[in-house]
């Protein structure tokens, strides 16, 4: 059979492979090469070694963005997953209206980042107006605004995944724990959470990469104001590319660093949480 299939490579794989090569592999490889070049368009690139990387790491905006994204990711990954898990646990207790609540909590996830950003800009400015400030008056408003926005957007998504996981835990396990005299806290930490570990791996991965790559929400909510203090990495890279002439190479070098960080952090997270999953 393999032989029969093999001949059909051009039908089954080629179209996807062509699109994938032209729009992903080639831009990716070019991106790595260009990070070592000075250029304004692809055609006038000139090799400059690691100059772009040195410039990137001595750029205050980039270092600030790195700090901002790191802090933002840590805070939002923790809050999103704790709250989503708690809601999922509550919604699997058989109370009335479960469906309605699930539908409501998930809805913000479907709205795009740009629209979400402006919804929350209105909301946060409306509250801050009572103190005569706006979201761009101080970096801390923008930071916490983004954290709240991200929670609002992703809690529903993670909740859906956690609900599926909790419903999958065999009831006998919980019964057995009860009979053995386990307290509710013990049941939670010794039975439910370990059994839900595969879903925790996935949710941590999804929220981590989403928080790290955050762009649309950042652009719409604060656009980095005041004075680039609330710009995350993705937004900083965008600004370097398109709002700063002659810095295209540095933008590309920043993007390579960004890619390496995202890759390393997500691999590390997968490795750590995978190890804690219960063997089946």
């Amino acid at each position, binding site marked *: *059979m393999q032989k029969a*299939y093999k001949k*059909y490579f051009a*039908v*089954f*794989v080629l179209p996807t492979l062509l699109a*994938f090569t032209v*729009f*992903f592999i*080639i*831009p*990716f490889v*070019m991106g790595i090469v260009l990070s070592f070049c000075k250029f304004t368009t692809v055609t006038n690139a000139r090799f400059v070694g690691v100059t772009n990387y040195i410039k990137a790491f001595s750029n205050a905006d980039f270092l600030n963005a790195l700090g901002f994204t790191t802090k933002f990711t840590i805070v939002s990954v923790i809050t999103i997953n704790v709250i989503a898990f708690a*809601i999922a646990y509550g919604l699997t*207790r*058989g*109370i009335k*209206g479960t469906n309605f*609540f699930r*539908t*409501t*909590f*998930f*809805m*913000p996830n*479907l*709205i*795009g*980042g*740009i629209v979400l950003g402006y*919804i929350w800009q*209105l*909301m946060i400015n*409306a509250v801050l107006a009572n103190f005569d400030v706006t979201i761009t008056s101080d970096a801390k408003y923008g930071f916490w605004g983004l954290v709240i926005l991200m929670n609002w957007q992703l809690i*529903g998504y993670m909740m*859906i*995944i956690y609900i*599926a996981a909790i419903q*999958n835990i065999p*009831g*006998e396990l919980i019964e057995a724990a009860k009979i053995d005299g386990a307290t509710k806290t013990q049941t939670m930490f010794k039975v439910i959470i370990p059994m839900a570990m*595969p*879903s925790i791996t*996935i949710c941590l991965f999804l929220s981590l*990469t989403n928080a*790290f*790559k955050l*762009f*649309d929400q950042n652009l*719409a909510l604060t656009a980095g104001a005041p004075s680039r203090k609330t710009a995350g990495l*993705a937004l900083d*890279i*965008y600004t370097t590319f398109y709002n700063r002439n002659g810095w*295209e190479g540095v933008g590309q070098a920043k*993007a390579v660093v*960004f*890619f390496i960080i*995202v*890759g390393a952090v*997500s691999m590390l997270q997968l490795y750590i949480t995978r190890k804690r999953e219960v063997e089946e």
Partner: protein
Amino acid sequence: MAKKAKKNNDMAESVEVSKTAAIIMTIVFIILAVIFLFPILLVLMNSFKNKLYISEQPFSLPGGETFAGLSNYIGGLAKTGFFSAALNSAIITILSVILIVVLTSMTAWWLTRVKSKFSSVLYYLFVFAMIVPFQMVMFTLSKVTDILNLGNPIGIVIVYVGFGAGQAVFMFAGFVKSIPISLEEAAMLDGCTPIQTFFLVVFPILKPTAITVAILNAMWVWNDYLLPLLVLKSDYQTIPIAVQYLKGGYGSVDMGAMMGMLVLAIVPIVVVYLLCQKHIIKGVAAGAVKG
């Protein structure tokens, strides 16, 4: 995990809570639901208010002199060309999703069935693409699409196939592995070509994954901002681009028009969500079961 999910809800029975606890939980969830819905209702409310009052009295209901009727909507539509943007968004999303589902399911099936070094290298390349952030390729990608003259709502669809291929191939491949090969052997013995075998035997079995892939990609493409902004020529807008366009350069934003457009951007999503809620929620839960 996906397969087990269908088993039953036996957990729920063994952990039902007492009546008082149920009441307290219901109250907490009602409060949470209000918090979740409030920002959207606030936008809706302010979309009917005169723009001067939106920043001054954001929490008051429109009425009397603050009531603006539909003027925010009319003004916003005049400023953005929202309807042509919505049409572009719809065309791009529908075509991209169809192409991604058909092409990547074929690819995933071939890569899983034909065991060779080449197919496994290719598979891992697709997996690798999933973690690469868009910023890494955005500049070079937009140059490539410029050269190939793909900056229109049809051309961008191919770009989405290339960029969405990684995750979709990965999800389909995971499911193909669980399909017994004997079905395909029987079809081949009956004289089906591999193309017939795939579309008549394999694809129907892949349907649940196809729905999941379709939903996740529709959510992505419909809401995507940066890729269309960089790829499309400036005479084409999508909804997110039209909304961001209202912000313009410096200067102040017309908050009235912004509120109107936000509502128009949210309405189609809410309608589709309420109609296909079950599929969407199921699809998301199943889509999370990655390798």
